[in-house]
């Protein structure tokens, strides 16, 4: 048990013992040694909770009832959830969009040393300056102070991509989306995707063909990136769950960069701020 795991378990125990929550959502290790989400509902199970760089989902996405459909007529349970700093930004977003009520969630925020996908540190984490969650009920500390990377351009790879010709960009993304199997894992793991019926699957009207071919796959991903404009927190869950290793984070960071430049807006700074594309601000002036 690590220093962090000890604190997570103690916090979970506290919440369950006090009956403050009915469930703690965190990570456990399966018999094969891999991390996976776990729903702890009783005190005697809290020692299953673990922490590590491979705990790379955003557990906030388990908070929307609509996506996970616990069944009609069930009260929304009070839940504690283990989150990284970027993950907690999603809570701000979800509260702002009235998908989650603050009083129903206890945030066990973990001081973050970065998360890994397939054993390598995520691009976002390389430049991330935010190691302490902007929102938490309990702060989990690291044993040693976390080294914050020196300030560097977090969008270096995006700037590089921006230099490509449109043909080069199209060729790159066509090749990436070619291997997409339209499994929707990216969408299902995303805290910002909670539509009851996704446009990609809606039958009436039928916007997107059911075909699993490049145009549909590209349409789906680009549409999702647009729907997440100013709403993506950069948690990387989409990329972590993608069975075909498509660099979805790159697409989302491209949009995040545009939003930052156009609106000086970063998702999830607080409960009060509305994503710029879903609200109207008469004083808004774009520097186009």
């Amino acid at each position, binding site marked *: 048990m690590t220093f962090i795991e000890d604190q997570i378990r103690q916090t979970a125990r506290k919440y369950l013992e006090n009956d403050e929550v009915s469930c703690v959502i965190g990570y456990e290790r399966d018999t094969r040694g891999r991390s996976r989400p776990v729903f702890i509902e009783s005190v005697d199970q809290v020692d299953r909770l673990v922490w590590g760089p491979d705990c790379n989902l955003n557990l906030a996405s388990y908070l929307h009832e609509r996506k996970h459909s616990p069944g009609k007529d069930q009260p929304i349970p009070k839940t504690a959830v283990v989150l990284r700093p970027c993950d907690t930004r999603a809570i701000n977003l979800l509260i702002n969009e009235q998908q989650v009520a603050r009083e129903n969630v206890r945030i066990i925020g973990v001081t973050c040393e970065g998360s890994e996908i397939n054993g390598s540190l995520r691009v976002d984490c390389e430049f991330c300056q935010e190691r302490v969650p902007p929102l938490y009920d309990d702060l989990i500390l690291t044993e040693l102070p976390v080294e914050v990377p020196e300030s560097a351009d977090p969008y270096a790879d995006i700037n590089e991509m921006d230099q490509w010709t449109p043909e080069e960009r199209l060729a790159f993304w066509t090749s990436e989306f070619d291997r997409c199997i339209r499994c929707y894992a990216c969408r299902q793991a995303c805290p910002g995707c909670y539509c009851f019926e996704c446009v990609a699957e809606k*039958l*009436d*009207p*039928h916007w997107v063909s059911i075909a699993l071919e490049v145009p549909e796959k590209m349409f789906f991903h680009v549409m999702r990136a647009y729907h997440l404009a100013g709403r993506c927190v950069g948690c990387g869950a989409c990329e972590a769950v993608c069975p075909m290793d498509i660099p979805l984070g790159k697409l989302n960071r491209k949009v995040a960069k545009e939003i930052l430049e156009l609106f000086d807006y970063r998702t999830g700074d607080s409960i009060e701020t509305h994503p710029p594309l879903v609200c109207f601000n008469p004083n808004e002036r774009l520097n186009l």
Partner: protein
Amino acid sequence: MLDTNSILTTPGLATIKGMKDLADNIKLVQVRFDDPDARKNFSYAPGQFAEVSVFGVGESPFGLASSSERGDIVEFAVNRVGTLTEALFRLDVGDQIGLRGPLGNGFPMDRFKGKNIVILGGGIGGAPLRPIIQTILDHRGDYGKLTILWAARSPDLLVFTDEYDLWQQAPDVEMFLTVDKAPAGWPHEEGLITTLLEKINPSTDNTITITCGPPIMIKFAMMTLEKLGFQPDQNWVTLEAKMKCGIGKCGRCNMGGVYICTEGPVFCFSEVRQFLESFV
């Protein structure tokens, strides 16, 4: 050898011969196969269904609402609820559609011979029951007393209203109508079909019941029938489920290991009770 042109797997073309308003947002579509052989060969039992193609939209299953014995016009009722039914509503006499079938098992009419029959129809659920009524009327001597309980949310949602007189004129037939909420001057019953059922309290002796309607109505009708002394094996139901293929391939309609499309849609309620998954 593989028959790639089987009408079970490839639609046969049929032309719309009539579109009748049955109720608010419910139409009866009357079609006839273009191919004379298909007309002859397409014989079906009450309770069977067909996959109807609206070209450019897709296919959906519809319970056949006509009796195969009454001619080569095939009828089914359409409730405007989704894309395909919306598209069907836009079609008119002379337009072509596709039909695959007949699919499913149908009611075992032979087993019902000599028995008293109680029919419970809810809303558009009355449509697949109509061929049973027609068959009984066409062979009146083969069956016992026929009691029809017909329900809808409101009077404008009752289907086949123009046929009630004909049905009731037949010997040994009783018919009762009920609506959830009756307007002023409504001469029939008010309330749920289960209330009506309790009031009529049909004898269980040598009787079978046949129910079709929304899942929730079937659930409560079965509870009421049990209360009135009916055994599960006296009660027959026809179930609905989302389907694509209608021939047990696409994996959409199973309730536990039972495929509604091939093993149903008609079931004895004693079988339904054995399903691992609830039909509601």
